[in-house]
């Protein structure tokens, strides 16, 4: 079952204007750098992007924003991006802000065939506007619905031709649940290994969720908040 494609350009074939994309990563950690670059070249427009954050001005999803390819962002936190702010305040960009846990669970639900679930997060806030409220065990909850996407773009550490994925450190974050929720999931990996090299007991995302996979190049892995302590 060989899902390997040559590179990012080949991997993103079929992404068209107006589509909905999920993009893995938390801040700039664990983002699909190669796919984002290829998308900038491809130029598909009016995209709806579901991603926890929106990158920074000159990296990550910020590159798509600068290129005005994004019509709508669905995120939990978007604070690190001036171009984002400009487009949002000018009304060019629609923004749907979602509690981070609800965002993660809505993606998982989309991948797991669960169309809706109740969560306490956001009850009594504007997030609950228009949503059904129900009390369980004396506590009010709101009904949240599943999210899916035409394409999910995820980044993993290692992968094989079957699409099995292993992530590294906190670069895991939203990548697994988005891999589950994409109608077509594209995985870019730092190391594409031979079949059988990954221990089946330690696969983070089974290959069944991945349709295309390739080994990415030139990972920059930019650090947003380099924070260190002094050696004593």
């Amino acid at each position, binding site marked *: 079952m060989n899902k390997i494609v040559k590179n990012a350009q080949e991997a993103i074939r079929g992404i068209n204007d107006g589509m909905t994309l999920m993009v893995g990563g938390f801040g700039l950690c664990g983002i699909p750098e190669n796919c984002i670059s290829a998308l900038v070249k491809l130029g598909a427009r009016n995209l709806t992007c579901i991603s926890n954050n929106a990158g920074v001005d000159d990296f990550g999803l910020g590159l798509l924003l600068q290129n005005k390819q994004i019509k709508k962002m669905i995120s939990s*936190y978007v604070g690190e991006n001036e171009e984002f702010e400009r487009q949002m305040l000018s009304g060019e960009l629609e923004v749907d802000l979602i509690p981070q846990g609800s965002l993660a669970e809505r993606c998982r639900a989309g991948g797991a065939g669960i169309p809706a679930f109740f969560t306490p*997060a956001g009850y009594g806030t504007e997030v609950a506007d228009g949503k059904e409220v129900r009390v369980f065990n004396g506590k009010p909850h709101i009904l949240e619905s599943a999210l899916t996407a035409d394409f999910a773009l995820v980044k993993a550490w290692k992968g094989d031709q079957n699409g099995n994925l292993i992530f590294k450190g906190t670069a895991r974050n939203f990548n697994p649940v988005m891999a589950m929720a994409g109608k077509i999931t594209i995985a870019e990996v730092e190391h594409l290994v031979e079949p059988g090299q990954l221990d089946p007991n330690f696969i983070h995302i089974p290959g069944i969720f991945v349709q295309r996979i390739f080994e990415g190049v030139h990972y920059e892995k930019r650090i947003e908040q*380099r924070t260190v302590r002094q050696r004593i």
Partner: protein
Amino acid sequence: MLDRNGIARRIAQELRNGWYVNLGIGIPTLVANYIPEGISVEFQSENGLLGMGPFPYEGEEDADLINAGKQTVTMLPGGSIFDSSMSFAMIRGQHIQLTVLGAMEVADNGDIANWKIPGKMVKGMGGAMDLVASADRIIVAMSHTNRKGHSKLLPACSLPLTGVKCVKRVVTNLAVLDVTPNDGFMLVERAPGVSIREIQDATAGRLIVNGDIPEMKM
């Protein structure tokens, strides 16, 4: 009166052995620097790790290991990494014993507002709404008044809410206050050198002062 580190140090006294704790960005992050001796707690970062250690030494930063504030961090032995849905399963499922976070406003019924100022750029709520809707024990760390000198402890929040009736305790530069279910803020401790009068003047919400109020032991 306490500075930011003082507030963090006072909150650190709330830690109990064996607790899992989520610290928000800002003052709450400083709490990790003041864990009392003999107390072992584990810090959760909602982007997907348990057993967060100190910042790395220069040159040892790993781009693939950050906290929810996007800062480079380290892991302690016995830690673990997980995805975002598992992380919020821990939070929503009340497996975290203590959440400490900052706020722009707290109401005397426990409502909290900390994510949005109408007319200003909205950055988003991140994981704050999940955290405050879930945790049994929520402590807010903040200054008692804002830059204009207005109280941040109010009869009702004026800003869009992050969560309702969820804050249990507030630790400010002036005082420790508990939120009572029906009667407003109950003054528990005064910051060193701060009078009850000063606290009353800085508190717009209902404030209960019962008998002698001790000064914090720091």
